[in-house]
């Protein structure tokens, strides 16, 4: 079982002595404190809550399975911090976690929070594992403490563009014109700039780029502009509430492009959207984070989440995986020491298999997991299906959308 897998890997890393100790948890093994940072109040609270859930489930699973064996079965104790949906909140929670003596921090969710919080943590050489934050700046600042298991912006968008071209070509190139709708913060604006630069190179014409604030009260004007432009494709990059509003307004205004193709959208691969507004969600495509449907653990975790009456969002498997990554590093480090954990995180390789993301063998370069990759999903028949990459897709894309 997993027990032996950990043992084998730890042996490779030469801490056999520690591991040879009996696997029974010893009462005196002091708990290892792990900081979990999520925005559970404010605009991003939905994401934050589901991120926290993933971290909790991972910690419970680790503790139920005997804790960190290399540390004499030490339990992981969660030190939770609410980033309050802004970078300042994230930083002040990092300070508290530092005072609490955590060995590492996992989370952040939004790029601005991840940027600020990881920088604050770097002052204490405190390992920081980003759960979602996609801004590529996060791993390009030369911070030795910062790691990201998931894919960054550049990787996701280039996959999104490649898949879009493949999708359009396979259907006989029905689409040429595009309208981009994006939220006007760091994430959406960066996305819009990149799409504007890349889409023309791939044979698409960007008719217009429409920005909107978060939160937005109304999408009627955005919908009106789309209606007057009649694009083949609409590419939105927004957070949850705004995309839901846009999709519903487009439905209301009877705007039916050949495809709604989202990139890193907060709603398009979210079961809440699919359940609450099935008509507006139908056939929306997204290129985003998504757990590996081939791994049995994915279905198991999803069941646990849905048993709590919660929706299945990517935040949960991503945080689950990030906590598993830290636990794995602790096993290999053999001590709850920040520098040792940073070293162990950086040395993570394909032997780390306890995550449930659809990534190849883990390899960190400057803190970024080179194997991190997105998938393309599409809402079909009230379910979210994987349509790319084809080697583990569970549905054929429905495109162009007709009628």
């Amino acid at each position, binding site marked *: 079982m997993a027990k032996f897998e950990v043992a084998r890997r730890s042996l490779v890393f030469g801490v056999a002595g520690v591991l040879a100790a009996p696997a029974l948890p010893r009462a005196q093994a002091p708990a290892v404190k792990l900081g979990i940072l999520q925005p559970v109040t404010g605009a991003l609270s939905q994401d934050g809550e589901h991120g926290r859930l993933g971290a909790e489930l991972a910690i419970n699973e680790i503790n139920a399975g005997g804790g960190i064996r290399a540390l004499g079965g030490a339990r992981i104790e969660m030190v939770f911090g609410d980033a309050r949906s802004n970078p300042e909140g994230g930083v002040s929670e990092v300070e508290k976690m530092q005072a609490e003596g955590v060995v590492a921090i996992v989370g952040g969710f939004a790029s601005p929070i991840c940027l600020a919080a990881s920088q604050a943590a770097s002052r204490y050489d405190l390992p920081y594992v980003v759960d979602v934050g996609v801004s590529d700046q996060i791993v390009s600042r030369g911070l030795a403490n910062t790691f990201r298991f998931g894919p960054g912006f550049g990787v996701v968008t280039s996959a999104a563009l490649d898949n879009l071209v493949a999708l359009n070509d396979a259907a006989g190139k029905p689409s040429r014109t595009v309208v981009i709708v994006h939220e006007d913060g760091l994430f959406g604006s960066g996305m819009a700039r990149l799409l504007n630069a890349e889409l023309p190179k791939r044979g698409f014409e960007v008719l217009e780029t429409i920005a909107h604030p978060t939160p937005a009260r109304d999408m009627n*004007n955005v919908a*009106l*502009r789309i209606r007057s432009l009649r694009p083949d494709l609409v590419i939105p990059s927004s957070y949850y509430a705004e995309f839901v509003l846009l999709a519903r307004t487009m439905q209301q205004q009877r705007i039916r492009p050949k495809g709604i193709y989202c990139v890193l959208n907060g709603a398009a691969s979210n079961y809440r959207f699919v359940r609450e*507004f099935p008509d507006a969600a139908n056939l929306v495509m997204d290129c985003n984070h998504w757990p590996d449907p081939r791994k049995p653990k994915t279905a198991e975790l999803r069941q646990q989440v849905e048993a709590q009456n919660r929706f299945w969002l990517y935040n949960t498997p991503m945080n689950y995986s990030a906590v598993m990554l830290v636990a794995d590093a602790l096993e290999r480090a053999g001590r709850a020491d920040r520098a040792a954990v940073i070293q162990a995180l950086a040395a993570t390789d394909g032997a780390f298999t306890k995550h449930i993301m659809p990534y190849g063998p883990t390899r960190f370069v400057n803190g970024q997991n080179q194997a991190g990759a997105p998938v393309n999903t599409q809402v079909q028949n009230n379910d979210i299906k994987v349509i790319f990459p084809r080697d583990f897709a569970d549905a054929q894309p429905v495109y162009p959308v007709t009628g």
Partner: protein
Amino acid sequence: MGFPPEIILEAVLNGLLTGAVYGLVALGLTLVYGVLHIINFAHGALLTAAMYGAYVARTALGIDPYVAALPLAALFFLLGYAVQRLVIGPASRGKDENILLVTLGLSIVIENLMLAVFRSDTRSIDAPYAMDVVEFGPALLGYPRVVGFGATILVGIALYLLMTRTATGKAIRAVAKERTGAALVGIDVAHIYAVTFGIGTACLAIAAALLLPSFYVSPRVGNAFVLVAFTIVVLGGMGSVVGALLGGLIIGVVESLSGLYLGESLGQIGIFLIFILVLLVRPTGLFGARA
């Protein structure tokens, strides 16, 4: 950039419809200002509370917001009355600057109460008609907006009748004009203050019920409307009921058109440009009585 006329027409109509509900929110604010001469900083928080009221009515009791509007208005009238009579009035000790702080404090308490009870999630109801449209020529108008417009007009008429045809209305106008004089002729000023505050709060309850089918609610949602409402009150003239409604329509159209032309991110610029312009050029507003 040019838009086809039917798109511009639809944007203007949308603006008028949204503006009507803005006007309703501003109505409560301007009424309280006109009579009590206080700026009610708790206005946004009370709107939020009313929206949660409508939300609970719908999710827990299954009552449609449009049906819940009148009972909610009655409930919020009583709430407003009690707040003025039992909290704001006594705490102010007759000083206007105290009232400012009391209402500000009240807004913080209400907001955090909402946060504690409902958490910070944005919530919305799924009314079956939320995405229905009314076809008006080439324009497709959202059904909740059309209802909101109609209901606001009705509330406006009802309020006008109340103010001109009833003894209470006369008393309110008397207190607004000359507090001491009104007291001398036997009007219970404290009671009239509370009634006015209650009416203002009741307007909010109706606005909340009209907003909920097409909008979401979160503990801070009221602030988004109140900034706009302040602008409307200044534009329409502080204390003017007609000014509030007309100002609401104007601001709605300005917001819609600037949103269409400048994009949603900059759409609010139009509103605040008007705010500054009015303050510079005509500080009394369109219908302001006092200089």
